[in-house]
């Protein structure tokens, strides 16, 4: 299966990276990691890309890491359609101090607009 994982550098996006690497290794998925310009998280996209590359190398998984510039939600949806991905994977939301789950508007946009299956990782 051709999988497009979007990460922006939030904790939940790194959890999604770990889970997706595990699954891709087991299922021999063809994985592409897209580093997003995420207005909701501070980290430098280059740092996020390096971190993803390190984790992929540690897991001995051959996957492309690409930068998607511009609006992260619409970029993900567009790339998934253009390049024939079967599935888009995203972090499943951040927990507040109270433990409340909040889903960012990138995830919301992708869920509502993607024509591919979307997975949110918990």
């Amino acid at each position, binding site marked *: 299966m051709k999988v497009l994982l979007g990460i922006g550098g939030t904790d939940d996006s790194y959890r999604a990276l770990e889970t997706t690497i595990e699954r891709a290794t087991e299922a021999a998925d063809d994985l592409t990691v897209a580093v997003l310009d995420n207005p909701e998280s501070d980290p430098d996209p280059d740092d996020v890309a390096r971190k993803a590359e390190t984790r992929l190398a540690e897991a001995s998984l051959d996957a492309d890491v690409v930068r998607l510039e511009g609006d992260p939600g619409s970029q993900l949806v567009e790339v998934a359609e253009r390049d024939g991905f079967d599935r888009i994977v995203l972090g499943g939301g951040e927990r507040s101090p*109270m433990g*409340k789950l909040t889903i960012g*508007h990138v995830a919301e946009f992708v869920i509502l607009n993607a024509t591919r299956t979307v997975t949110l990782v918990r």
Partner: protein
Amino acid sequence: MTDDRPYPDEVSGPFRTPPFSFDDRLDRRIEVRAFDGDEEPLVAMYRAFDPADRAQGIPPSREEEIREWLAVVLDEGPDVVASHSDEVVGHATLVPDGTGAFELAIFVLDEYQAAGIGTRLLDGLLGQGSAAGIDRVWLTVERWNTPAIDLYQKVGFETTDAESFELEMSIRLSAASVPA
């Protein structure tokens, strides 16, 4: 960690400091008081909580997870409970967010909802919070949850972010004691 959330310029309140009691819309005598440290009545309330009333993943449904979650919620920040004939039927809590501000949540058992208990619980919690020197409180609420949003607006919360599934709202308090 800095708090970059917007807060209303205007201070809301004054709010009531618990304990106090009142008759709800179904003439049930309800007592509002600060949490006294006994977790068991709260665990019982959350075990009886209607799964359909869960929001954003809380409260958890299994007892073990309820206890773990309560340990976090009760650890720091004010907690206020509403009781009816010795049973806890509502709970409101403030949890520090690490920036000096507090996150708010409130839970009322299904058969006690829409009876005016939430309003009194919030009143008591924000009174308790003011008395403890808290001046900034925020919350998130699912966008479709109109009864909750109306309740928060009634006590003075203003919407600060409406771009996601969840609305974010905040309120400014006067960090001073208010007599009941």
